[in-house]
């Protein structure tokens, strides 16, 4: 058990009364409530927290926020395992189990650090060059090792037992960032009367104020405004919530984390889509590193991070501290650390020092060297000494902590997500958001002004403007002042490094200044090429700390200004997002909504093997008929053609079409005519698209002069309804027609087979089932148990068949009744596989033939529209291309080789063809025909070779099969349709 020997006995925003036990790389350690994992590790004296990506160099914690490039850990075990999490952004929780990454066997002794010796072979773009020979196959050999070495963390492979949620939220004003600017904006917007959502990624509000002393004026200001906000009912504060992207419609994407391992009945992460009317961006700024030889050693960290570890977490990260800087801000870190008793030296690259801060520093015995920069660092697993280069020459100083500050980069990611390019400002040598669109406002250091007083004022103004944008303009009293005396930012440019050791620009991707020079030499100068060739900025931190230095370096090489060099595009997510969080509860059986027919429970209870058909659950086959689908469907086919079968067809699309102009309307939307359909009759109809291609088929029944009952295919039901509504709303608004979906109103079943009439008569006593009363395509009304039934005599299977429609709530009752009544005739239920097989035997086209590429003529249905015009698709279906002689048309095929089967999707060739490419056509649907004792199928085959009686070759490359097949009529069974009539 470590003793937190780097922890100060008092101060900080941790609760020493609530210790927390956790484990890191198998060691049990202690921290406190209020720690991050990173601060707890530092408190325990653990300065080695990772190994770099390519070279496996030892690395320590570099920052105190989500911009962390080095200290990436894997949290949790088993299915809960989550890799690549920055330790700096993890709130410490009891029982947390964390492991470092990218090292074997251990962090302290990592075999792959030997990669460092191969560094010359591993520079930027190495896999494009170094490993391409000596033979072509060599790459496949090297790739195996390179791939295994790639990546940082390892993903989990077990099922994640945790719960994730998706939520929807709304606000007038959303504020991204809970630092002084964001807090001030929230307050102002709330007083102005807006509904405010304040979003902060940390578990504490305060932003940069948390780097200040926890008992000073900044802390008091923070506490006061937090209390004020808590008392305002129209403010919702979202802590531990990262706004990872902004999307159209002012939708902010938020992820809230709960990393407590002892989560019970609570979501691990919640993804919220927050729709705001106005957005204030107060995302702050990220400190820049300095670039010099070996600048990546453990013990090097950002100056503001060192200050945060000291003031917020009461950890003294070093005793002998070197602060290297180009700007004033780092002086405050030096001053605070010196006041705690550390030995501090400041190396300021500038020759002119800030008078007030320098004086204050000297009062604390801080040695200051002006015009001085770090040339190199000594130390492997921990920094030991720094080589300085200054006006007096070179020198060396011992140190155990090096705090660096190369200036600040405003966090412009979120503002860029909607395509607003950041613009460069010479006066602060950095990028700020470009022109923000209406409804978007910016405040604080994100706008390039690094002063707390400015942030508070700017935030206040932004809050008022944002609220006004939403029409809320009540008076908002000015905020309390807080002036920490920061000066306007100066734009001193960091002096580039000149040492011989590796000088890192992107720590996470192990990109050095030499890599940038290499890219430039090889012509990869544009910033987009630079990024992709060197992989700079492509890590999980998206180059938050490294991008600017890299851009500056490339600009210098190209001898251009930074704006001329440009910047790459920031895209969401700002930080990595777990896919589970985006899915929320839409996993497993909730992945899509499940649609059940009224007879669903009966199917499940009676041995149906249920199949997902789009959103519907349908019976695939019934286990009574066979052990698997191949056995069962044949048995079910035999039953239907030999006796009778009952099939649940409730999934069909059904549309009520009514109105004085309904008949005219149907004449226009169907390729065949409907206006003259007699009342009480049904007709098969085909609809085309405007381009002449077949859209859908179905059956429409005329119930009265002005009223029709339309059915569509299951798959196209929604599309057909939308199409009809489109035509009525936009093309023919003068037609008085109402179309309404009644798909769920009706349970529907198809009773088919030679015994179907007998069953019908037995089930519905009193119903006249004679051929005269109920002929083929006729309609009858009946009743059962007080419920009205509609019976349409039409057939999909080619047997005599009746479709029985009844209100959905009576579906199961009628279904059971029909089965009971039909049992003596051999009636039983049959499934979707047999349904499909039966229609193939009859040459009925369905989805596989109506695939969005076929016309009426292709499908042999040209006669339906032979004498008609004026319907949707009529004109373009006649275009010359559709009449070409080699256009693929519907044919029937039967297997010409005893015992060999045909396969759907097989490609067709004629004897003499070279068997390659797309051939002459393809098989679209296939079934075994018990009646014919062989495999038969429907196919689309080039018209100029589709001669009945001749043979084709059906090849199925995926199984290396070729079968000879004979072209026959597609109506395999009962070619004259005698079974349908009489």
């Amino acid at each position, binding site marked *: 058990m470590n003793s937190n020997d780097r922890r100060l006995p008092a101060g900080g925003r941790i609760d020493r009364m609530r210790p927390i036990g956790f484990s890191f790389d198998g060691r049990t350690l202690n921290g406190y409530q209020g720690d991050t994992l990173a601060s707890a590790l530092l408190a325990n004296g653990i300065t080695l927290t990772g190994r770099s990506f390519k070279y496996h160099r030892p690395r320590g914690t570099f920052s105190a926020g989500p911009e962390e490039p080095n200290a990436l850990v894997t949290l949790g075990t088993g299915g809960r395992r989550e890799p690549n999490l920055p330790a700096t952004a993890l709130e410490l929780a009891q029982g947390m189990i964390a492991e470092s990454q990218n090292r074997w066997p251990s962090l302290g002794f990592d075999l792959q650090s030997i990669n460092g010796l191969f560094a010359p072979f591993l520079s930027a773009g190495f896999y494009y060059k170094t490993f391409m020979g000596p033979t072509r196959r060599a790459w496949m050999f090297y790739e195996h090792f390179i791939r295994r070495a790639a990546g940082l963390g390892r993903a989990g492979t077990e099922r994640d037992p945790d*719960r994730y*949620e*998706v*939520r*929807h*939220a*709304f606000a007038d004003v959303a504020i991204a960032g809970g630092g002084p600017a964001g807090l001030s904006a929230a307050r102002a917007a709330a007083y102005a009367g807006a*509904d405010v959502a304040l979003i902060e990624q940390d578990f504490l509000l305060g932003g940069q104020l948390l780097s200040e002393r926890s008992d000073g004026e900044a802390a008091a200001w923070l506490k006061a405004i937090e209390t004020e906000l*808590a008392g305002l009912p129209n*403010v*919702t*504060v*979202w*802590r*531990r*919530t990262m706004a990872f992207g902004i999307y159209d419609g002012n939708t902010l994407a938020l992820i*809230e*984390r*709960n990393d407590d391992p002892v989560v019970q*009945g*609570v*979501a*691990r992460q*919640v993804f919220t*889509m927050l*729709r705001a009317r106005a957005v204030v961006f107060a995302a702050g700024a990220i400190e820049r590193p300095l670039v010099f030889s070996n600048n990546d050693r453990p013990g090097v960290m950002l100056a503001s991070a060192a200050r945060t570890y000291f003031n917020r977490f009461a950890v003294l990260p070093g005793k002998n501290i070197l602060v290297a800087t180009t700007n004033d801000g780092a002086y405050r870190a030096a001053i605070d650390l010196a006041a705690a008793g550390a030995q501090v030296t400041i190396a300021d690259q500038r020759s002119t020092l800030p008078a007030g801060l320098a004086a204050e520093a000297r009062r604390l015995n801080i040695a200051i060297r002006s015009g001085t920069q770090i040339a190199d660092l000594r130390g492997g697993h921990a920094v030991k000494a720094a080589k300085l280069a200054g006006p007096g020459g070179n020198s060396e100083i011992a140190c155990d902590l090096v705090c660096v500050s190369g200036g600040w980069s405003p966090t412009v990611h979120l503002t860029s997500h909607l395509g607003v390019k950041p613009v460069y400002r010479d006066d602060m040598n950095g990028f700020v958001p470009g022109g923000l669109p209406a409804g978007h406002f910016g405040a604080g250091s994100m706008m390039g002004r690094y002063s707390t007083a400015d942030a508070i004022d700017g935030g206040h103004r932004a809050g008022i403007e944002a609220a006004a944008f939403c029409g809320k303009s009540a008076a908002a009293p000015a905020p309390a002042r807080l002036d920490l005396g920061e000066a306007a930012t100066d734009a001193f440019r960091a002096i580039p490094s000149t040492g011989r050791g590796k000088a890192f620009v992107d720590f996470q991707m192990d990109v050095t200044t030499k890599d940038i020079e290499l890219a430039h030499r090889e012509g990869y100068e544009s910033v987009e090429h630079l990024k992709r060739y060197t992989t700079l900025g492509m890590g999980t931190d998206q180059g938050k700390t490294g991008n600017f230095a890299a851009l500056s370096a490339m600009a210098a090489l190209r001898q251009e200004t930074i704006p001329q060099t440009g910047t790459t595009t920031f895209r969401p997510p700002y930080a990595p997002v777990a896919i589970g969080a985006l899915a*929320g*509860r*839409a996993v497993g*059986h*909730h992945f*899509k*909504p*499940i*649609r*059940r*027919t*009224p007879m669903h429970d009966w199917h499940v209870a009676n041995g149906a093997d249920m199949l997902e058909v789009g959103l*519907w659950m349908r019976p695939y086959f019934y286990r009574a008929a066979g052990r698997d689908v191949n056995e069962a469907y044949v048995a079910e086919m035999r039953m239907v053609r030999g006796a009778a079968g009952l099939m649940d067809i409730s999934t069909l699309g059904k549309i*009520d079409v*009514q*109105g*004085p102009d309904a008949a005219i309307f149907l004449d226009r939307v169907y390729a065949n005519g409907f206006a003259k359909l007699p009342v009480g009759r049904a007709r098969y109809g085909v609809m085309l698209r405007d381009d002449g291609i077949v859209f859908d088929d179905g059956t429409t029944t005329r119930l009265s002069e*002005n009223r029709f009952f339309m059915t569509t295919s299951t798959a196209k039901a929604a599309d057909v309804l939308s199409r009809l509504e489109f035509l009525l709303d936009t093309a023919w*608004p*003068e037609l*008085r027609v*109402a179309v*309404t979906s*009644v*798909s*769920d*109103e*009706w349970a529907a079943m198809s009773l088919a087979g030679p015994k179907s009439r007998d069953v019908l008569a037995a089930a519905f006593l009193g119903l006249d089932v004679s051929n005269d009363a109920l002929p083929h395509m006729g309609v009858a009304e009946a009743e059962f148990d007080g419920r009205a039934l509609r019976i349409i005599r039409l057939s999909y299977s080619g047997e005599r068949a009746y479709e029985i429609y009844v*209100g*959905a*709530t009576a579906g199961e009752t009628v279904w059971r009744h029909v089965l009971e009544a039909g049992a003596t005739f051999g009636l039983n239920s049959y499934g979707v596989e047999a349904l499909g097989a039966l229609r193939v035997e009859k040459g009925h086209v369905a989805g596989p033939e109506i695939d969005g590429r076929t016309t009426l003529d292709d499908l042999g249905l040209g006669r339906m529209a032979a004498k008609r015009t004026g319907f949707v698709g009529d004109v373009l279906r006649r275009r010359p291309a559709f009449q070409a002689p080699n256009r693929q048309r519907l044919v029937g095929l039967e297997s010409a080789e005893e015992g060999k089967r045909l396969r759907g999707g097989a490609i067709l060739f004629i004897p003499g063809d070279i068997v390659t490419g797309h051939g002459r056509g393809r098989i679209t649907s296939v079934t075994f025909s018990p009646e014919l004792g062989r495999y038969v199928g429907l196919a689309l085959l080039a018209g100029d070779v589709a001669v009945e009686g001749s043979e084709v070759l059906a090849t199925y490359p995926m199984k290396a099969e070729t079968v000879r097949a004979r072209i026959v009529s597609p109506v395999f069974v009962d070619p004259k349709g005698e079974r349908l009539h009489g």
Partner: protein
Amino acid sequence: MAEALASKDFTLSRSDCPIVQIEGWDGMLAQFELSASQMLGTALPVSVGDTARLADTLIVRVSPRRLWLIMEADAETPQPAIDPELGCSVHLGEGRVRFSLSGARVLEILSGCIAVDWRSPGAAPGRAFQTVFHHVPVLVLRTSETGCDMIVPRSFAHSLADWVADSASKRSSPGIKARN
């Protein structure tokens, strides 16, 4: 048919939902509305989302020219006689199920199902709105501050009830609860 899920701060019950839809033709709307309101004996809701109550029937305007007469589960379904020159009607009594939701957590639970700003005028008690719930079109009737009915297509009812029950069975994270 009524099935219930109940906990101390959330209840869901299901019932049948007889509906009669009436629609007026574009160009005859004023006459249609006059005729319909005379036949029903009450003024019709004016805009989409407005409702009017008549005994145990709720009248909802669901689109500019279309109204739903939504009845209690066992009510007699009226057969409105609409002049075919003015409009038409169709029964939608079998194809929908009504979920009745109430309890302190209703709005919070539904925020994981549908995207609606509960504070907006369009979602206030007495109003109705149509929206999408996990890819399924639903009609929501806001019946009180902490209650609403949701009318869902019957084929999806089991799946959606499952989703709501799943939503309700776990509390949200302390982070969200402790937001303020």
